[in-house]
């Protein structure tokens, strides 16, 4: 099912979605675009290239409350925080970010214990993917095509959108998307021309080039494993790294978190908060032992985790080439350049 609307009328579509549930869409902020919960349909802005922070926060918010407790009361009185979710519409997600949800699914709900928060949020959400504009060249930091992600891949989205002139085409990909799309009154049926345009663009997106050429993930994984103990190499590439957490916080596939108890007077909440493997105290044990005290050890952990350990454990690279880490790095460290250098070592 392919439908269409005009870009100017996007607020009508937003208003309709808003009436059905929670709408999370890109909003222009002082530092750039970000996914935010929309309160006013006029806020949705489609003039973005990609957002500053990744859309993972829709399923894995930076803080998630687990339990409310009172220190003066018994543990039996602790209240587990419930998630009451309305249907969520995650609007305008780029194909590489859509791919990141699949990767995170493996970790949070596909293997081992199931993370109930991720699962529940994920189930409540309809994803509106949004193709990159193939007429403008990719940002110099992006490398999603290196990881075999097309600029207009609809896989993973429930509804996939793309621009055509000043119109917006929407195609239902899953039954969930199909149901939703057919219930939206502000859309009109697309023509045969537009159906062809949609399919052509998806195909063209597959050959849309970002920097670097394709690589074999098994080769990278093996190479990084072999390089693990070559301290000299890691020291060299981490010379510039400040070991701040900017790259991990903006990353769509970074999932590390900390569980904190935050108490004010007696009342408190146990919550999870994003953490970063780049922080010194990330692996600090209560005994005082810390296996990763040096910057190179932490950067090595980050790179190897994404491009080696994750492949060994889950079979996929934990990176989608969205380029956010590179764009937000204060010292211009580029993760894939490091992998590239490693392959040449």
């Amino acid at each position, binding site marked *: 099912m392919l439908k269409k609307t005009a870009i100017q009328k996007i607020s009508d579509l937003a208003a309709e979605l808003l009436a059905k549930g929670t709408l999370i869409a890109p909003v222009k902020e002082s530092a750039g675009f970000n996914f935010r919960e929309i309160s006013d349909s006029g806020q949705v802005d489609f003039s973005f290239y990609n957002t500053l922070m990744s859309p993972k926060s829709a399923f894995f918010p930076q803080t998630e409350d687990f339990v409310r407790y009172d220190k003066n009361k018994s543990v039996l009185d602790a209240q587990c925080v419930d998630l009451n979710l309305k249907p969520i519409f995650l609007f305008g997600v780029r194909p590489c970010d859509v791919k990141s949800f699949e990767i995170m699914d493996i970790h949070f709900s596909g293997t081992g214990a199931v993370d109930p928060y991720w699962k529940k949020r994920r189930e409540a959400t309809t994803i509106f993917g949004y193709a990159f504009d193939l007429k403008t060249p990719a940002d110099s930091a992006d490398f999603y095509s290196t990881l075999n992600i097309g600029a207009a891949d609809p896989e993973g989205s429930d509804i996939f959108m793309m621009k055509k002139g000043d119109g917006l085409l929407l195609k239902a990909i899953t039954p969930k998307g199909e149901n939703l799309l057919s219930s939206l009154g502000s859309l009109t049926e697309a023509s045969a021309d537009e159906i062809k345009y949609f399919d052509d663009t998806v195909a063209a997106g597959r050959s849309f080039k970002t920097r670097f050429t394709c690589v074999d993930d098994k080769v990278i994984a093996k190479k990084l494993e072999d390089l693990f103990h070559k301290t000299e190499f890691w020291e060299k590439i981490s010379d510039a790294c400040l070991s*701040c957490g900017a790259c991990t916080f903006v990353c769509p596939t970074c999932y590390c978190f900390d569980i904190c108890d935050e108490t004010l007077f007696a009342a408190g909440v146990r919550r999870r908060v994003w953490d970063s493997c780049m922080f010194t105290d990330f692996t600090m044990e209560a005994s005082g032992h810390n296996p990763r005290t040096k910057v190179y050890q932490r950067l090595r952990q980050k790179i190897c985790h994404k491009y080696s350990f994750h492949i060994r454990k889950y079979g996929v690279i934990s990176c989608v080439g969205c380029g956010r880490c590179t764009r937000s790095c*204060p010292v211009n460290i580029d993760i894939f350049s490091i992998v590239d250098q490693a392959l040449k070592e």
Partner: protein
Amino acid sequence: MSINFKQIEDKLKTEARKLLEEGKVSIVLAYGKGYDEKKPMPYVVRKTSDIENIVFNEYCTANMARYLVRYPRGTKIAIAVKPADSRAVVQLIQEEKVKREDLIVLGIPVYGMKNFKTGETIDSKTTCGIYNPVLYDILLGEEVHGQPVVSPYDVLVDYEKMDKDGRWTFWKKELDRCIRCYACRKACPMCYCDPCFIDQNKPKWGEKSPESQGNLMYHLTRFHHLAGRCIDCGECSRACPVDIPLYLFHKKVAKECEEMFGQAAGMKIEDKPALVNFRVEDSDKILE
């Protein structure tokens, strides 16, 4: 006269080679190629074969003084510094984090640097606005004279004019956006505490989650810790992925410190940092 970046780069290469070959230093902290011409990176030169990778262009904004404390004491280091960075070196020497005799300071007189994220020119609005390094052993290029001298505190005028509620609204809005990635403290040449107060669990000074209270505690205390020490390089604000104008607050504190204690941070090696020093004749007026 404009800055000849290519010439500085060449001189930087020549000096780095000389220093390494003569064995005067074991590392040179400079700038190197990034993934893109407009994205240079901080670069540590250890071998003469690394020298070809050195670059210096208008996007080389990083403050290399940040990396000084990373190397064991006694490591002989040559460091390329821009005007503000040289103040950081001076301040670190004052605080005895590095020894003067271990350093060879390669001063770069420069203006017209550009923020590699936004392309904006960096001037006295976001940095200290001086043109010549305050400390150097070797000068790469020529001293800059004749450029307009603008007080780095001029940018504060608008904020000082705001009433207290306006200022509170402004700072609350800005600090609420913080995602606690700590890029500011990691980019800061003066932030070298291990562990940082905010990472301590007993006493726990602030919440870890990025909400108003923890953010406020983290930033206000950090502003305080940098009082009289901030050399106004502006790296914290440039490092910030969400563009919080931290430099404004740092400038304000620096300005007050300068007025109260009569010394700016990182100008003279003989000075003591203002807050670990006192004068009996300090006036009680500063408390009013």
